[in-house]
């Protein structure tokens, strides 16, 4: 690694201003002196908390996707839905573009992001550094805006209210798992400080 003085500075991603790198305490933020964007977050040993939240999220993701999450009852008949039912139904109706986007944003991207967070944090406990962790770190950075579980949950609430006029809605076990999942996955992402991870990768030999 090139650690000449020039590279100790942090260039702002929003305005290209060079800011001197400072040591930050927990929960402290560094702001760009020119445009005010956040250019660094403080925090030590947060990778272990990220791991715990990400692991819980992965388990909850499995639960949320395996059990029915809503039952819709009208005039003595009922319809059970899984998280993936919308995807298969849209696909069956020929709307593969919608099916694909809903699958990607509500199932695939969350799995990759949560799995990726586990992948980049677990080896840090053993002090290991692997080349694939670099790829995974970049992948998490690129995919996290496409993981839309909290938007999906809001969609569930809106549909339940829309349908409550015409039928009874019963929530399944997946719904509780999904609700907790929103909390654990946002905790995993917010405790994950990419800077801490990349600095960890700089500190030793990469296998």
């Amino acid at each position, binding site marked *: 690694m090139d650690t*000449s003085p*020039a590279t100790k500075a942090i260039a702002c991603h929003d305005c290209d201003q060079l800011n001197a790198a400072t040591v930050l305490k927990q929960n402290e933020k560094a702001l760009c002196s020119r*445009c005010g964007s956040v250019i660094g977050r403080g925090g030590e040993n947060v990778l272990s908390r990220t791991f715990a939240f990400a692991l819980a999220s992965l388990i909850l993701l499995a639960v949320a996707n395996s059990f029915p999450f809503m039952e819709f009852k*009208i005039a003595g008949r009922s319809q059970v839905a899984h998280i993936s039912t919308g995807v298969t139904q849209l696909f069956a109706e020929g709307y593969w573009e919608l099916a694909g986007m809903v699958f990607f944003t509500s199932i695939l991207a969350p799995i990759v992001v949560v799995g990726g967070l586990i992948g980049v944090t677990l080896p840090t406990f053993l002090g290991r550094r692997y080349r694939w962790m670099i790829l995974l770190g970049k992948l998490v950075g690129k995919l996290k805006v496409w993981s839309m579980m909290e*938007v999906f949950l*809001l*969609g569930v609430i809106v549909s339940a209210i*829309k349908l409550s006029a015409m039928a009874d809605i019963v929530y399944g076990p997946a719904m509780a798992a999904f609700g907790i999942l929103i909390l654990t996955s946002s905790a995993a992402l917010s405790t994950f400080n990419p800077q801490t991870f990349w600095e960890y990768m700089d500190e030793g030999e990469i296998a």
Partner: protein
Amino acid sequence: MTTARSLGLARCHDCGLTSRFEHAPEGGSTHCPRCDSELHMRKSNSLSRTWALLIAAYLMYIPANLLPVSTILYLGNSEPDTIISGVIALFQGGDAPIAMLLFFASIAVPMLKLLTLTGLLLSVKYRSKWKLRDRTQMYRMIEAIGRWSMLDIFVISLLVALVQLQALSTIHAGPGAIAFCAVVVLTMFAAESFDPRLMWDALEEEV
């Protein structure tokens, strides 16, 4: 004020490392010493890519608002809904909070994104120095809220999944939903390809 570029430094888009930018020989490219991503002083072809994505989004915005996004078949009646008619129906049905939410996510946010990105692109074209900090914050804001526009797509997928009681009532997706989904995705890509540093470059080159 010193920019990274003026010192021959570039920030890595993937890992955030600020490193020396060596001009590569003809046809070659410079890579980040830490994560090996390709380095650029500014996002490559940012303006033309953002314009292209934005114009495509404007074009899709028309069918997204004119075509039905869903059709409800209820006791023999067929009721197609566009985005706007759906929001109006919710207002008339007395579901004001939900109507406001969908109005915000499906009408206000996409419109705000299209107009803001157009404004930002024009401000770069005319090298405007007006309120650079505020424009940078605007950019960060539309980048952050864009994903919430997927709300309507999730609601449609959930309604389609739940309401499949053949004789009584069914809900189908409509072609407007594909166009709307395309607007959301195209504006997300457009925001991602825009480089806010180009706005700040207006300050630099005249000094």
